[in-house]
């Protein structure tokens, strides 16, 4: 912002904007010169935060990829026992929720309050549906004794494509360890996302968002998209290791 502007005229513009908008918009915080600066800061802040999230999940993906390469057969066998159709359904659910988020942002930009509220609710419904389906999957794994720990059992499961060979239970347990950590952390991010959207919903209900100021919807949406994208990578890596028609 400061680079490309003539200094003195910029100051003049600030003053004008500051007075004009301070009256309208209590959302402009004292330490920003103008709304544009505040919006840019919030948006850059979220992008930078998502960068740290990429690294956070990146460590997990790295560990997963190393072991998947080492123990491919065992991982493929273990992967076959998780429910691909539930995973695929969840992928569809999340993609739909991304659409509703985009519509919510558009509704905020164009001052359609009813649409904004309903899209936020719909997004949360999709989010809850995702977590519900995930819960069913976890319950299945629990009943099949595929949760790592003392009661873990993975005996005599054949390795796909290698008749007569059985998966090493210890290595299958590593698959499930990573499966639970990765999908668990992803689910935690979903829960946080639901919290953010609940707050956005309250704000939208009260009519706080205007076409001039709806930054929380935008950066909340960015966060939601990011969590979706993580799932877009988790699904093929965990569910589709060695599937053939």
């Amino acid at each position, binding site marked *: 912002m400061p680079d490309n502007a003539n200094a003195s005229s910029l100051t003049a513009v600030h003053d004008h904007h500051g007075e004009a908008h301070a009256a309208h918009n209590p959302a402009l915080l004292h330490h920003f010169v103008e709304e544009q600066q505040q919006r840019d800061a919030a948006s850059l802040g979220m992008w930078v935060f998502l960068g740290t999230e990429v690294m956070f999940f990146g460590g997990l993906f790295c560990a997963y990829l190393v072991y998947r390469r080492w123990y491919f057969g065992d991982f493929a066998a273990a992967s076959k026992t998780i429910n691909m159709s539930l995973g695929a359904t969840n992928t569809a659910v999340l993609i739909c929720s991304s659409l509703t988020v985009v519509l919510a942002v558009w509704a905020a930009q164009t001052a359609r309050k009813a649409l904004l509220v309903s899209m936020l609710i719909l997004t949360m419904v999709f989010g809850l549906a995702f977590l519900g389906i995930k819960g069913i999957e976890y319950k299945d794994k629990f009943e099949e004794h595929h949760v790592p720990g003392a009661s873990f059992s993975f005996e005599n499961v054949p390795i796909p494509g290698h008749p007569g060979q059985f998966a090493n239970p210890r290595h299958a347990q590593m698959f499930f*360890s990573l499966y639970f950590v990765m999908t668990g952390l992803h689910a935690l991010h979903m829960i946080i996302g639901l919290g953010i959207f609940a707050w956005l919903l309250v704000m939208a209900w009260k009519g706080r968002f205007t076409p001039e100021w709806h930054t929380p919807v935008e950066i909340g949406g960015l966060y939601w998209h990011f969590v979706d994208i993580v799932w877009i990578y988790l699904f093929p890596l965990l569910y589709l290791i060695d599937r053939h028609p």
Partner: protein
Amino acid sequence: MWSWLLTTDHKRIALLYLISITFFFFIGGFFALLIRLELLTPAGDLVQADTYNKIFTMHGMVMIFFFLIPSIPAVLGNFLVPMMIGAKDLAFPRINLLSWYIYVIGGVIMLHCMITGGVDTGWTFYAPFSTSFTNTKIVEAGIAIFIAGFSSILTGLNFVVTIHRMRAPGMTWSRLPLFIWAHYATSIIQLLGTPVVAVTIVLVAAERALHLGIFDPKLGGDPVLFQHLFWFYSHPAVYIMILPSMGVVTEIIACFSRKRIFGYHFVAFSSIAIAVFGFLVWAHHMFVAGISVYSALVFSFLSYAVALPSAIKVFNWTATLYKGSIRYDAPMLYAFGFLGLFTIGGLTGLFLSALGINVHVTDTYFVVAHFHYIMVGGAVMGYLGGMHFWWPKISGRLYPEGWARLAALIVFIGFNLTFFPQFILGYMGMPRRYYDYSHMPEFQVLNVLSTAGATILGVGYLLPMVYFLWSMRYGKPASDNPWNAAGLEWKTASPPPTFNFDEEPVVTWEAYNYEELDAPHKEEVPVAG
């Protein structure tokens, strides 16, 4: 009291950080003292082996995660980044306050962990010892460090956004003080590195608490993978500690030699280069861990490469000093101390990048001495130099210059006496982390020297704390710009008003315009007679 605990003013948050990190510095220092006392005699007579393991672990964890990493960024950076770029505050003042609370929560958990038993793995948490064998409080220490890590991430995030979005009109990227460039590079490392160590600690804690199999070779896991993930953060973390210090030293050297920094752009971009290269050298901590010799060769080469930007800085500082009108005030003494000690630390780092020497001195006191020259000789010297340089701005008072020079001298002597003997000890083969060296009593003389040095160093660290506190009440009031320094932070009151500047500054000059600053003075010199 509440006005402090609920403040969103970056300057007050900086002071909250100052108090908390000083507290942890003295806890870490206490553990260091115990280590040095134990090593005074060859026999293990002060503490038991298990206790000694816990002592050096807690020393490392407290000093690294709760003192060095937040030291300059969270105190001086917090105070100065908005002021140097002419902003009223950081971009996210509430997140800034949140980061302090997160730090305190992490710190309290760490204290609880220490009081109720501590950890004995060394600060590195190596698996599978940490995941399956030790029965100390790994999970709790992990939680403490995980939480403190988020404080570091939020600080970095705030700095990056602030530097991008909050600069005053006319404050272009090439007019930024190099302190800002250093903090920008530091923030990038904090942002990209910290999440990786966070997730690694999550995995260790999950493996330990929930019996997942990830790093334990018994379950098919790979302990070397743990080391890769750990050092992917923890090597760049060294640059989190040293880069801000380099920024401080740059400011001090320009001010006290009254000169423009030689090669501004080289110094600026060498900070970024250090941040980038710093991410590509982590496996030099693992040369004896069983990695392939080819990858060891590559990492050895890259470790040499990371010395280049550091050397660029040292040469540019030296060139700045050349023909400057140098004043030997306390901040400059620390800067000189930094130059010498960082150079020794950096050059011994090159020894360690060489595969042959590395294998010879791995896990000896040579390594211990090397990283203390960087972290204490480098980072802490810069921190103290910066605290003296900006103390008049922070407190509005002058510290007693004579005492400060004396303290700088004591720190320098004490430091070298503590750690130089450790280079020799390590090269002769004394392993690190031993509490009992009774089968090699010939090492005692050097260990006694080192312990004596540590005592002197301790006095050197206590002195500034005493006279800083003293000056808050009895020091002479400081003018706005007692050093006649360049930089926006000196163009406002000492201490600065809540929003830093009475009116938004407009920048039309380059950083370090000392020639211009001093020019009017020359004209004013009265003709003799």
